[in-house]
């Protein structure tokens, strides 16, 4: 006699009626297949109901359909039903119908034009909320055609005495002129009055509209420059206002409006000294008085900085802006640090001095946990290098190179070497720096940089001994870094005699005198080692040949011959060719020394390399 049980059983056999029940049924599904089955069944039921022109159920059906659509299932068959809902006089129907239209249609679909008439009627409705629905829909998905058709209606509503309608009309106008820029002139005179409105909603949407118009049309921009004093006044009021409960966001009065005003001021002040002058004080005021402990305040400060940077502001104001960014760099919030680095990157070439003051904290950002921040900090650090700070900065960058992600390494090796090239205080420092780069990231060094280093070494005859000793020690320690090996092999090949005669030297520990045998066994280990590739072998073979005339010990020469012999049958054609030709050269002892003389010192410096 369980009435509940019976009715429940009966109900479970009926098609689902209410949205709530459909959602429950879908959520109860344990597998994707179950969900698909429920949805397919319900979709079919809805389709049938639509076909039967079931008016009472239309609202519920569309609601269910929109839910199904949000889950990713097809719902195109509901488009016309949304149109029918919109045509209904019921508010609930229009509300859902317009939502459906915004979700299921876009401006590229022809069906949308069928809504134009309803929109027009509803924009003339006595119920302000219905007017609002129409404006909202048009503002979100209008096509250029609809924009033209309904422009006059929107213009009329822009002059409405109702603030709710006015502000929606303003944003609707934004959409219209984005789609059809030519229609801008229809809104100019009404827009002018919006800027004097007391209602924040109207003011903010009005400013948005004006900003859009100014960005599209240079004449309009000039026209609205006259509005700068009004905007300045609004901003001042917001900054100095006492607590306003309606517009307060954690202690700041209407940050959204402040940001919009600052943005418009930026465009109006750009390239215009007079307008900039008029906004100078308020910008300083906002920059100084805005609380920077929370995101709200920082969002305003950020916009202020962007504005100051984009107008011909006086240097005091610019320094103020850069200092704000400097403070941002120590903020705990990732977003703020990121945004600061981005902005500093854009301005570093203009305000280099001011940015230099924050160098230390920028370098700290190289160790930030967030890779996007590390990336930006790296870019900025390179931009800051100059004659005065090259040693300090290079030291920091080399330290960073040691632990940097692979994606940074190649760019870094190039940039560090270029900076060293530009600003090196002396040759020894220059050579040491490039050597350090080769040791830390020798597998990420571009050919041009390596060539530049070799050129540098060749040109610096007073440091030949120093350089060849350092490279010898480096290779003894590590033959896995390709560029280091190539550089080392080339230098030792050229100046092997200097190395032998050089005696013992200090390199972290005392290195005993280097003998010919030592050098040859080093080269042998390179050839036999797991890191050698064809290029490496080519270099070694040529270097060996050069050493045959640099070294005087005949045992060394014999060993060189043997090592070369080992490659006369090499599968690598280039290697084979060199080995054979060099081996042959031993039969021409008359000319061999001349052939293997020191390379002529190359001219010039490293070219500027991109990236």
């Amino acid at each position, binding site marked *: 006699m369980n009435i509940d049980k019976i009715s429940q059983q009966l109900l479970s056999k009926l098609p689902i009626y209410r*949205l709530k029940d459909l*959602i429950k049924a879908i*959520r109860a599904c344990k597998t994707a297949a179950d969900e698909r089955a429920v949805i397919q069944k319900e979709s079919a039921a809805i389709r049938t109901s639509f076909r039967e022109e079931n*008016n009472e159920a239309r609202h519920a059906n569309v*609601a269910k359909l*929109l*839910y199904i659509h*949000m*889950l*990713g299932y097809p719902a195109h068959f509901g488009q016309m039903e949304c149109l029918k809902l919109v*045509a*209904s*006089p*019921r*508010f*609930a129907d229009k*509300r*859902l119908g317009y*939502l459906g239209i*915004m979700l299921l249609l*876009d*401006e*590229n679909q022809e069906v949308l034009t069928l809504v134009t008439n309803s929109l027009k009627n509803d924009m003339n409705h006595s*119920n302000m*909320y219905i007017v*609002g629905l129409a404006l909202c829909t048009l*503002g*979100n998905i209008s096509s250029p055609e609809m924009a033209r058709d309904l422009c006059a209606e929107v213009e009329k509503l822009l002059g409405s005495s109702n603030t*709710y309608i006015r*502000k*929606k009309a303003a*944003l*609707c106008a934004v*959409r219209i002129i984005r789609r059809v820029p030519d229609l801008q002139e229809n809104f100019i005179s009404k827009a002018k009055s919006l800027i004097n409105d007391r209602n*924040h*909603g109207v003011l*903010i*949407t009005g400013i*948005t509209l004006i*900003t859009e118009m100014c*960005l599209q049309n240079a004449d309009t921009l000039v026209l609205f420059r006259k509005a700068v004093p009004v905007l300045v006044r609004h901003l001042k009021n917001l900054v100095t206002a006492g607590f306003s409960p*309606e*517009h307060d*966001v954690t202690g700041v009065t*209407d*940050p*959204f*409006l402040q*940001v919009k005003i600052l*943005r418009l001021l930026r465009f109006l002040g750009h390239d215009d000294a007079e307008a900039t002058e008029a906004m100078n004080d308020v910008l300083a005021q906002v920059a100084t008085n805005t609380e920077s402990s929370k*995101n*709200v305040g*920082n*969002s*305003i400060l*950020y*916009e202020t900085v*962007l504005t100051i940077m984009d107008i011909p502001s006086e240097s005091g104001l610019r320094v103020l802006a850069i200092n704000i960014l400097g403070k941002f760099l120590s903020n705990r919030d990732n*977003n703020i640090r990121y*945004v600061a680095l981005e902005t500093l990157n854009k301005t570093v070439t203009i305000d280099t001095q001011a940015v230099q003051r924050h160098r230390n904290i920028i370098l700290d950002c190289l160790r930030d946990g967030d890779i996007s921040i590390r990336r930006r900090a790296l870019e900025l650090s390179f931009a800051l290098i100059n004659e005065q700070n090259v040693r300090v900065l290079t030291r920091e960058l080399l330290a960073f190179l040691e632990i940097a992600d692979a994606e940074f390494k190649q760019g870094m090796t190039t940039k560090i070497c270029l900076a060293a090239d530009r600003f090196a205080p002396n040759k020894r420092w220059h050579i040491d720096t490039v050597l350090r780069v080769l040791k830390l990231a020798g597998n990420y060094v571009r050919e041009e940089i390596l060539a530049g280093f070799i050129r540098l070494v060749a040109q610096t005859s007073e440091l030949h001994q120093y350089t060849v000793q350092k490279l010898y020690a480096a290779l003894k320690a590590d033959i896995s870094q390709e560029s280091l090996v190539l550089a080392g092999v080339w230098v030792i090949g050229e100046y092997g005699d200097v190395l032998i005669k050089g005696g013992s030297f200090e390199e972290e520990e005392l290195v005993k005198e280097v003998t010919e045998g030592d050098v040859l066994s080093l080269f042998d280990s390179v050839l036999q080692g797991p890191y050698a590739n064809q290029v490496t072998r080519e270099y070694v073979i040529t270097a060996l040949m050069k050493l045959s005339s640099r070294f005087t010990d005949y045992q060394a020469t014999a060993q060189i011959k043997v090592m070369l012999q080992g490659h006369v049958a090499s599968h690598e054609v280039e290697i084979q060719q060199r080995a054979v030709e060099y081996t042959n050269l031993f039969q021409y002892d008359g000319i061999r020394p001349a052939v293997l003389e020191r390379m002529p010192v190359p001219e010039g410096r490293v070219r500027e390399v991109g990236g």
Partner: protein
Amino acid sequence: MGINWMLLVSRQGKVRLTKWFQTIPPKEKGKIVKDVTQLVLARRTKMCNFLEYKAGINGEDNELITLEIVHRYVEILDRYFGNVCELDLIFNFHKAYFIMDELLIAGEIQETSKKSVLRVITQQDQYEETEASEQAKGGNSWTGEGK
């Protein structure tokens, strides 16, 4: 200029709201949703307990204020539903959209007073309710003529 789209995704990757302020072909929309969901779920969240809100904006826009707009939206939802939770947004997704439509149009903010937004939403809800009860009293079928 302005916000291009707003996505609301649950921690399990279920989409709870998608609002597009730009015209984008359906395939691309799907891709954006997928990519953003993956990106967002992979990162640690500090924002809220159960949902990720994502807004797509243009390069030169002020990201920080967009964050505030998202916060604003969440606050309003919270006030409207009374301690909003994911279930509220599931069963009342249409309301979530209605509220969004009172906060943003064309990707731009239209009202900065929380009170105003809540007031107009409530009034429209009441309008619907009044309509529904009048119809129930009236008892006849829907004819399409206004009262």
